[in-house]
Structure formats: C-alpha cells, structure tokens
C-alpha cells in the first residue's frame, strides 16, 4: 500500500466535512417539525404510472443499472434499488408485479433478496418469483441486450431506468418511445443524463438524482442529506473562488 498523496488528503477532508454537514443537519432536522418537502416530478410520475398499471392489469419494468461492477462502481445504484423496492412493495398483489433487470451479479442478487423481503413482509411469500429480477448481461451492451426484450413486452405500462447506466440506455428510451410507453430516466453519469434529457421529459439533471429518493419516502435523514448537499455546494463555490483569487494574486503557482 502506498502512503497518502495530496489528493487523498483533500478527499479525506471532503469526507470529514461531508460527515460534519450531515451530522449537523440531522441534529437540526430532529428539532424542526415543518420540514420542507421537495418533490421530484419524475419520481411522483412513477407513482402515477404504478396506479395506472394496477388498474389496467399491466406492469412496470425497471432497469436497475450496471450495478456494482468494474464498469460502474457507483453508490448511486442504491438509490435505484430503494425506488424499485418501494414500487415492488406496492405491486405485490398486482396481476403483473414489477419486473427488473440488473447489469451485475451482486446487484441482481441483492435485488432478489430485497424482493423476497418485500413479499415476506406482505405475508405473501408464495407469490415471490425470482424471475422478477433478471441479470441482463455482464457488459454494458449485454445488459442492454437483456433489457430491451423486457421493455418490448406488451404487458408494460411504463419503463423506469434508475441507476448507473451508460449512454446505450438511449436505446431503451427510444424503444419505449416507439412503443408509446412513458419512460423515467434517472442516471448518475453525465453522458447518460444528457442522453435521457434528449430522449424523455421525465429525467433529472446533476445532483437532482439524489433528490429522487426524497419523493419516494420523505424522512428526516433524506432531508438532512439534501441540506448538507447545499452546504457542501456552497463550500465548493467558496473554495473555487478563493482558489481563483489566490491564483490571480500569484499566491499559488
């Protein structure tokens, strides 16, 4: 193991600062009673689609991203799993429960465990089918090749792609548009955010990705994250301004 570099030290300071901001906001939010509610229209639309799916005897199809693989080592996949878990919970007794496709083994296995827990909590374990979460493939292209046939199913009411995706997710967006299925595209990578922005009106940009969870289940600690995010953003702006000033004055090379 090599010793810490300057970048590592800066990263550790950022982690410590983030921890302090989060803790401070958690403590502040505990005392507050009227918390601000910031709804993401993209995730609220998902709820509406779910109601329509239940009424019409159809299903929602989820793409959970490329998961915890070497292609997409992203914590953002947790968020997709949270939203999907909530959707699966609402669809336990539907004619067609939600279908999900993941792009890595660990993500698929974790999602299956989550799904089993959902059915166990609903005392309906006999309705649980492991096929509700499938591995799309172990590369970006293979994952998309596995996801596209699921998007193409006639029983779909809407499609939701939430997680770490590559720009190839644009193909799923195009297919759902051709099938006249509404699609929600929430990704944490910039090229895919741009692809979704051009492909579907129901998408998020930048850090709004992390606000998606708040619309799903509003909790004090989710709210604390958003406020801490604002604080960190201000700290980053300040640091950039000070850095620019120091550079202009020649204090730093």
């Amino acid at each position, binding site marked *: 193991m090599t010793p810490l570099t300057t970048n590592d030290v800066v990263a550790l300071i950022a982690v410590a600062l983030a921890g302090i901001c989060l803790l401070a906001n958690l403590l502040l939010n505990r005392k507050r009673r009227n918390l601000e509610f910031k709804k993401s229209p993209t995730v609220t639309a998902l709820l509406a689609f779910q109601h329509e799916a239940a009424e019409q005897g159809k299903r929602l199809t989820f793409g959970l991203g490329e998961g915890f693989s070497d292609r997409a080592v992203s914590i953002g996949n947790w968020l997709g*799993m949270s939203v999907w878990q909530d959707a699966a919970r609402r669809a336990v007794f539907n004619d067609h429960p939600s279908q999900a496709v993941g792009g*890595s083994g660990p993500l698929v296995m974790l999602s299956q465990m989550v799904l089993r827990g959902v059915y166990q909590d609903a005392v309906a374990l006999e309705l649980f089918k492991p096929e509700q979460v499938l*591995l799309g493939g172990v590369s970006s292209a293979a994952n998309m090749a596995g996801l596209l046939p699921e998007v193409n199913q006639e029983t779909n009411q809407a499609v939701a792609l939430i997680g770490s995706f590559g720009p190839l997710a644009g193909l799923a967006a*195009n297919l759902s548009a051709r099938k006249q299925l509404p699609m929600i595209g929430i990704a944490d990578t910039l090229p895919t955010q741009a692809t979704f922005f051009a492909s579907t009106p129901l998408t998020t940009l930048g850090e709004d990705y*992390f606000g998606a969870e708040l619309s799903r289940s509003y909790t004090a600690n989710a709210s604390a*994250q958003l406020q801490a995010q604002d604080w*960190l953003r201000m700290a980053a702006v300040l640091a950039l301004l000070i850095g620019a000033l120091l550079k202009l004055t020649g204090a730093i090379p």
Partner: protein
Amino acid sequence: MRRALPVIVAIITGVFILVALVLPVSLGGYLSIVLRWAIVVGAMALLVAIAHLFLAQWRRLMRGNKGSLYSLVFVLVFLLSLAGGLVLGVDDANYRLWVASIQKPLEVSLLGLLALVMTSAIVQFYRARGWSPLTLAFGISALVFLVIGLGFLQALNIVQLTAALRVFEQLPLIGARGLLLGVATGALLLGLRVLFGLQRPWGD
C-alpha cells in the same frame, strides 16, 4: 437481531475500509484481504445470477412462448461458451476469439444503432419538450460544439479564431465540472448515510 446483523456487519466493514484508507501503512495488508473477500463474494453472486438467467431462459424455452427462439439461441450459445471455457480454458486464444466474436459485433451494432437513435431523438426533442430557454440552449450548444468538434474551423489556421475556439472548447468542461461537483457531493453524502446505517436500501 436477524435484521440488525447485516447492518452491523456492513457498518463495521465500511468504517474499516475508510480507516484503512486513512492508515494505509498499518492497515493496508488487511484491506487487501477484505477486498479479496468482497471479490470472491461478488464473483459467487455473479455465478448465481448467471445460473438464474440460464434457468429463466430455459423455462421460457420449455413453455414455448412467443420469442422462445431467442431463448433457444441463448441456451445453445451459453452452453457452447461454457463448454469451451471448461475444456479449453479462459486464456485459450481460440476461446477468446469465440467470445470476442459474440461480444464485439453486439457492441458495435448497438453503438451504431445508438448513433442513429440519438440523431432521431434530437429531431423529436422539441416536439417532446417544447420550446423553452433550456431546450433552446441545449439545441444551440449541441450544434455549436458539434461544429467546433469537427475541426474544420481549426483547420482554417486563423490565429484569432483558433484562440477563440480554444476558449469555447472549455465551456462544456466548465458545465460538466459544475454538474460533477453536485453529483460527487450527493454520492459522498449517500455513501456516508449507507455507511452509518441511515440508509438501508436492502430493507427497513
């Protein structure tokens, strides 16, 4: 307790990895061991997921549903690839050629298709989203930076124009950095919430 145990294990592991990154000299060796465990568990999960995918396709094939031809192709190619890997070994040149012959055409054709799809998406973009300052700025900037990216203007070799283009080329990077800062802070905070058990996507 059954539900608390995985959370406790996850928190201890996460905190250990964070501390090991801070103290690489004293804990670096242990970090490698823990990461190797994670790789083994991840690989096992992948094997189970692949077996599960195979079984799902097999069941579809047996039911004879619409599209079962694709399941047949999947099952045959999977079994051939598996047998090839077991007999020849994964480092065999012929086996690697076999895998590449499946993977590369798939990737290239999907990327080619994506280029066409994105071109048509831009045409339909305004119909879907309507005219607004944001969509207008998106369209104009996409067009401008596409033209700049082609390199024809740089080839004119006009000193002032080249200098101006160099400044323009920085603009997308500035925007991307702004968005990336937001994404990074969000990911950092979400990571801390998962680390300290405040966020449990695997169940409440």
